[in-house]
C-alpha cells in the first residue's frame, strides 16, 4: 500500500517536473526542473529495488552532469523573449517527433520482451540480495565486451571534444606553476649593502 502511495507521489512529481523542463521560461528554472526529474526518477527506481542504479543516477546525473549544465546555463546571457518566438512554427514538427517517439516506445513496451507471463508478478528479492554484486557479475562476465566497447567510445568522445576545443591562442597569457615553484630567493632578491648614514 505504502509503496503505491510513494510511487504515485514521485511519478506525479516526475511528470510535472519533466513538463516544466520544456514549458518554463527561465532556462535556469528549466535545468533545475530537469534535476528534479532525475531525482524523482531515481526514487522510482529505488521502489523497484534497483538501488545501485538509483544511487548512480543521483551521483552521476544529478551530482556531476547537471552541475556542469547549470554552470553553462548560468554563464550564458540568454534572451528569454527571443527564445519564445517560433513556438507555433515548430509545433507541427515537434508534434510529429513526439508521435513517432510515442509509437516507438509503445512498440517496445508491448513487444514480447516486456510482456509478463500470465498471472506471474515479479518476486521481490530477499533483503540480503545485493543489487550491486549482481550487476557487477553480469557486467564483467557476460557483457564484458559491450562494456569495454562503451568505455572506448566514451574515451574517443573525450579526445574528440578536447581536440575540437584545444587550439593555440596567441593572445592568452598563462602562468607556468612549475616555473613559479622553481624560483629561488637568489633569482629575485639582491641584497645590497648600503651605509645608512654617511657624513656629507
Amino acid at each position, binding site marked *: *500500500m*505504502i509503496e503505491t502511495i510513494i510511487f504515485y507521489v514521485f511519478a506525479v512529481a516526475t511528470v510535472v517536473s519533466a513538463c516544466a523542463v520544456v514549458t518554463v521560461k527561465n532556462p*535556469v528554472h528549466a535545468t*533545475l526542473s530537469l*534535476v528534479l526529474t532525475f*531525482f524523482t526518477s531515481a526514487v522510482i527506481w529505488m521502489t523497484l529495488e534497483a*538501488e*545501485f542504479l538509483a*544511487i*548512480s543516477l*543521483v*551521483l552521476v546525473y*544529478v*551530482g*556531476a552532469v547537471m*552541475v*556542469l549544465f*547549470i*554552470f553553462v546555463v*548560468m*554563464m550564458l546571457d540568454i534572451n528569454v523573449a527571443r527564445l519564445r518566438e517560433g513556438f507555433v512554427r515548430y509545433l507541427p514538427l515537434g508534434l510529429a517527433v513526439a508521435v513517432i517517439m510515442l509509437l516507438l516506445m509503445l512498440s517496445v513496451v508491448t513487444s514480447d520482451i516486456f510482456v509478463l507471463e500470465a498471472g506471474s508478478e515479479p518476486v521481490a528479492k530477499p533483503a540480503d540480495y*545485493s*543489487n*550491486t*554484486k549482481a550487476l557487477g557479475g553480469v557486467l564483467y562476465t557476460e557483457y564484458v565486451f559491450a562494456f569495454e566497447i562503451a568505455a572506448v567510445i566514451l574515451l574517443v568522445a573525450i579526445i574528440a571534444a578536447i581536440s575540437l576545443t584545444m587550439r593555440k591562442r596567441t593572445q592568452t597569457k598563462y*602562468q607556468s*606553476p612549475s616555473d613559479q615553484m622553481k624560483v629561488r630567493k637568489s633569482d629575485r632578491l639582491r641584497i645590497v649593502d648600503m651605509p645608512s648614514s654617511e657624513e656629507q
Partner: protein
Amino acid sequence: MDFLVSIWEWLHEYVQYTIYSGVKALAILLPLFIVVAYYTLAERKVIGYMQIRKGPNRVGPKGLFQPFADMFKLMFKEIIIPTNSNRYLFIIAPVITFAPAMAAWAVIPFNDTLVFSNINAGLLYILAMTSVGVYGVIIAGWASNSKYALLGAMRSAAQIVAYEIAMGFALVGVLMVGGSLNLGDIVNKQAGGLEHWFFIPLLPLFFVYLISGVAETNRAPFDVAEGESEIVAGFHVEYSGMTFAVFFLAEYANMILIAMLCALLFFGGWLSPIPELVGDGTGWLFGKTAVFMLLFLWFRATFPRYRYDQIMRLGWKVLLPVTIFWLAVEGVAVYFKIGPWFD
C-alpha cells in the same frame, strides 16, 4: 502506561515504523547539532590559541555558552531578501544544502550494530548525497541577484566537480581492499589491530581523500567560494539570520561527516588499535573523528588560501593522476594477495 501501550498497538504498522525511525533519526541528529554548536566554539578557541589570543571567553564560564548566544542572535535577526532576487529559490537554497548533509548520516555505522540504515550500497549513497549539496550553493549564488554571490557559486561548482572525481576514485581504492560498499563491512575487514587498517596500503589515497574532503566542504585553504578577501562572502553574501545559519550548520555537519568517514574508511572506525589490550568501542570512532575535526581547524589556522587556478591544477593534474596510479598498484597487490590487507 497501559494506556500508552494500547495506543501504540492501535496504530498502524507503517505509522509505528515511521515514529520509530523518526525517534532514531532524532537520536542521531540532535547530538550532531550539539557537536556542530560546540565545534564552532572549538574552532574559535583553537584558532585563537594558535594565534596567541584567547578566543571567546565572555558568555558563560570560559565562553562555554557562546554557541547558544550565537544561535539566538541568528534566530532573531531579520531575513533580508534582496530586490529582484528569485524569492522562492533564495529561501529554498539553504534547505537544499542542509537536507543532504543530514541525510548522509543515515548510513553511518557507530559500531557493529548501531546504524540507522544498514544498506548494501552505503558508500555510494554517501557520495550521492554529498554531491547533491552543491546545488544549494549554486542556487544560492544565482538566486541572490548579486555579482559576488554568482562568482562564488561559479567557483564552487567548478571546484566541486573537480574534487568529486578525485574523491570518488580514492573511495574506489577503499572498495578494492574492503570488497564491499557497506560501511560496516569495510570497518570489519580492518579488524585485527593497527597494522590491518587501510591507511597503510592506501596512504596516498587517504591523503587524496582528506584533501578532497577539505575542498568539498569549502574549507580553508580551499574556501574560494567564500573568499572573504576577494568576494566578501561568496555565495552567501546576501543571506542573513536563520537562512545563513542553515548554510553554516550544513557546512559544519559536512566537516564532521568527512572526518568520521576518514576514521571509518582508513582508520578502522570503532576498532581498537591494539585489540589485545583495549576493547573495541564507539569511543574509538569518536576519538578518531575528533582528531580529523581538529585537522580541519588546524588547516584553517595555518594555510593561506589557494589561488583559484592552483586549486584546479591540484585537483585535475595532481590528485587525479595519483589516485589512478595507486589504483593500478592496488590492482597488482590484490592479484598477488600482498600483506594482511589483500587476502
